């Protein structure tokens, strides 16, 4: 089955109030082209589940987020995400803040169709009071230990970005870390995968060993070829993080006038092609 589709068609499946999982980690291999497409859409009141980076910052800045399920939101080389901070400090989002490992556990529970998975992470901390829906569970065995019952994090839609994929959704990471992208796909009802390049299935092994084929076609509903689709986050070995662009984003986030200019230049655009052109023009001007 040919699952090739477009950014717009993928994002058109979103409805107000849905739960959206976003792959990658911090400012690393984020499905930014899909995030930019969400910014262009009218959808709102999303619950976003993410190992957060500028995906979260941009969605918060555009007021798309009602609730955020996360362990952190960071730009890596800039530790604190400015737009996320602004939204939190204004009380504009419901923060479902978890330990990083609990987030993985919630995705894994959803992936395996389990109601919860037990963990010690969170015990004794304010993770429990700030997430009032969390419950504990007592081990039925002789130890009787009381543990956090991390509930399954079911996603309506998952968006991830990989280095290569074929038209059916077999996908490959070529960088150092697969992150949790396969779990995001497994936890979701609808799964959309953007990639740097769509290749023939038989060519996947030319770029890397079979260990890099992290996502198989059974986990994917739509494939989008989006070169530069993780920009300005990193997508090694295809490209590193665009640190200069990220600094420009972070600086603009601190000043309303600069933010308006940034939006006009890079975000209030009709398409990903126009974004790519704006980024190229920016590089050429330097």
């Amino acid at each position, binding site marked *: 089955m040919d699952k090739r589709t477009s950014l717009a068609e993928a994002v058109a499946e979103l409805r107000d109030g849905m739960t959206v999982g976003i792959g990658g980690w911090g400012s690393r291999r984020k499905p930014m082209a899909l995030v930019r497409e969400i910014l262009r859409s009218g959808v709102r009141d999303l619950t976003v589940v993410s190992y957060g980076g500028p995906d979260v910052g941009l969605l918060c800045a555009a007021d798309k987020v009602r609730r955020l399920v996360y*362990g952190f939101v960071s730009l890596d080389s800039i530790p604190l995400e400015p737009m996320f901070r602004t939204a939190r400090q204004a*009380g504009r989002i419901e923060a479902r803040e978890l*330990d990083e490992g609990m987030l993985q556990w919630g995705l894994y529970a959803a992936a395996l169709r389990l109601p919860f998975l037990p963990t010690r*992470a969170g015990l*004794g*901390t304010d993770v429990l009071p700030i997430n009032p829906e969390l419950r504990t569970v007592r081990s039925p065995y002789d130890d009787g230990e009381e543990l956090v019952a991390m509930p399954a994090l079911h996603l309506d839609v998952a968006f991830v970005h990989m280095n290569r994929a074929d038209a059916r959704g077999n996908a490959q990471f070529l960088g150092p870390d697969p992150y949790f992208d396969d779990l995001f796909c497994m936890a979701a009802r609808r799964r959309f995968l953007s990639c740097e390049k769509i290749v023939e299935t038989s060519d996947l092994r030319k770029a890397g060993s079979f260990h890099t084929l992290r996502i198989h076609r059974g986990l994917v509903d739509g494939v989008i070829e989006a070169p530069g689709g993780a920009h300005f986050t990193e997508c090694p070995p295809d490209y590193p993080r665009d640190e200069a662009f990220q600094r420009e984003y972070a600086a603009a986030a601190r000043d309303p006038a600069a933010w308006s200019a940034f939006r006009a230049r890079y975000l209030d655009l009709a398409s990903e092609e126009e974004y790519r052109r704006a980024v190229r023009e920016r590089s050429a001007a330097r």
Partner: protein
Amino acid sequence: MSGATRAEVCAVAVAELFRGDGEVLASSFGTVPALGARLAKASFEPDLMMTDGVACLVDGLQPLSGAAEGEPVVEGWLPFRQVFDLLWSGRRHVVMIASQIDRYGNHNFACIGEHARPRAQLLGMRGAPGNTIHHTTSYWVPEHGPRVFVEKVDVVSGVGYDRARQLGAAGRFHEIRGVVSNLGVFDFKTPDRRMRLASRHPGVEVEQVVAATGFELEIGPDVPETRAPTADELRLIRERIDPEGLREREVKG
């Protein structure tokens, strides 16, 4: 050995936190902790495991700036998923930065103020809840003051001894090895596990530490000085691990 800077004394104090750890993953945040962990590995704890900060386990001496010694040897792969597995299994000792810490070692770097609408959003919970309940943790405070060493942390991201005790069996892997600040070294070797001033750095008076701490520290009758770096340690620090002197930007004096 005299002539060591405060930052170098702090680095050795951090290295000492890892003494006896053997074959565990040594993780560190901040310049001085990174220097201290690498110093421990390069001297008295050669079996410590470390990452390149991305997804590889690397052996050999890793300079802070990455330039001087050539490529470290990759000895393993440790993507985030395996990091979580490893830390829940307990084979790790992390040094985290504390934005706030209280007398029992409850830690906060998530946010300042009410969690629902913080005055200052910081890092978030990150891995602190899982780290502190599963393996040895220590803390680094580059600027010791009463806004960091507080009576009560605004949000608990890392578990302290009073809370760990209440957890019973689930708290059995909890250990806060120590806290190193720019003024001294602190531990919890007291009957009720309150923070104790274990040593003051050379040139620091006990009164200075007391004035900079927002709660009552346990203080013995004779507080020793933090040990000075040896000549070999200073050579490792200055010539091999941090030849660019990044440590002096984090701690002055």
